[in-house]
């Protein structure tokens, strides 16, 4: 029983907590990071948060989440979190900015089932600029 509880806790630790992804966008305005997040078949939606430098002269960092024919946008100024309901499968995300200048950002992401419980989440980095 103790072993079972221990294993269950380990299992929860792999799925039950949000994931972080931090990166840096280079100076050019066309710089775009491109990632892919896979959610297992139990997934109802993906939750995404973005954070970065919010000072007035810093570029606004935006992330676009898209899957199938749907897309949503979040930014480091204004709405910086979103729930995107797209079921299981691969969610794509591009991250970019509206001014020149190097910027750091952090994403928090996790896949959730219809009850809000976290499901299996895997991130694959396709392009890092």
């Amino acid at each position, binding site marked *: 029983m103790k072993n079972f509880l221990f294993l269950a806790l380990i299992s929860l630790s792999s799925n039950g907590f949000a994931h972080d992804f931090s990166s840096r966008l280079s100076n050019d*305005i*066309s710089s775009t990071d491109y990632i892919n997040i896979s959610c297992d078949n139990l997934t109802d939606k993906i939750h995404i948060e973005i954070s970065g430098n919010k000072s007035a002269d810093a570029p*606004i960092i935006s992330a676009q989440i*898209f899957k199938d024919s749907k897309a*949503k*946008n979040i930014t480091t100024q204004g709405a910086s979190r979103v729930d995107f309901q797209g079921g299981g499968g691969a969610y794509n995300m591009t991250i970019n900015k509206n001014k020149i200048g190097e910027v750091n950002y952090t994403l928090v992401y996790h896949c959730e089932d219809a009850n809000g419980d976290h499901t299996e989440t895997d991130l694959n980095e396709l392009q890092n600029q």
Partner: protein
Amino acid sequence: MKKITQNLVWSFLILGSSLPQVVFGLDSDTQTLTANTGAIDFFEITCTKSNDISIGDTDHLNFKLIDNNASTQAPTQSLVAPQLLNATLTKSKLSSKITNISASTNNVFSLKGGNGAYTLGIDTLGTNLSIKTVQNYTIQYQCLNATGQATTGSSTLTKQNIPSKTKTLANGKTAKYIINCAKNATSGNTDSVKVTLFNNTFSQPATLPPSNTDVASTGTLAAQVISGNKAKNTIGANIDLQSGNGIYNVMVNSPTNAAKSYHFEYSCLNSANMPTQTSPLKTLQDK
């Protein structure tokens, strides 16, 4: 919420069944983006291989986002000298010249010189020499009698009254061709030769604003072009995304969640910037 129609911003040039249809660019027409948080317009463009073997596969998608609300726009091709062709017909001491045949246009001119050999010279004088892309053209000629009937014409260039195959000319270079006009048993002596020069060069911006100094943009409208595992962002500068034939997705959004009116220009191009086949724009999501 918005009207989705697409039109041609430049033109279709159809040079007869023996030549390919050349599409010089497409425009999304006016689109609007609401101020709703998270709003994105989402589009799909499919680039395919050209039906013209000489043009071949798509190399990249050229894309430009235009904010209809912006008070100033980044400099575009209208502010720089274009690519030009000039043509001269000479025979003995006679000559006829036509100048400034800009990309994607054609011009007709003639020279009255009777029977004999005419020299047709082509040059690029007046072209912005910072443009490195070669120019493309085709030539059609006809030897005519005094009443406009065809006489006998020949040239290594092409047969009479048949457009030549596409020729290329690097900027700063010249080309020369000989057209021989002779008496025809039916229509008699040649009075003049008529030449049509089609400048098939793709009219593209010669001096694009560097993407990292696009100060004209307010940064309140952005677009992303995505294909395969590649993606690029723009707030107004012209961008190329190199991903070959296939689907290119475009997303348009506002970093400040502002309501926006905009349009974008797009074209599938081969590695020499010649248009391949661009599908009609497909709207996936309209916010």
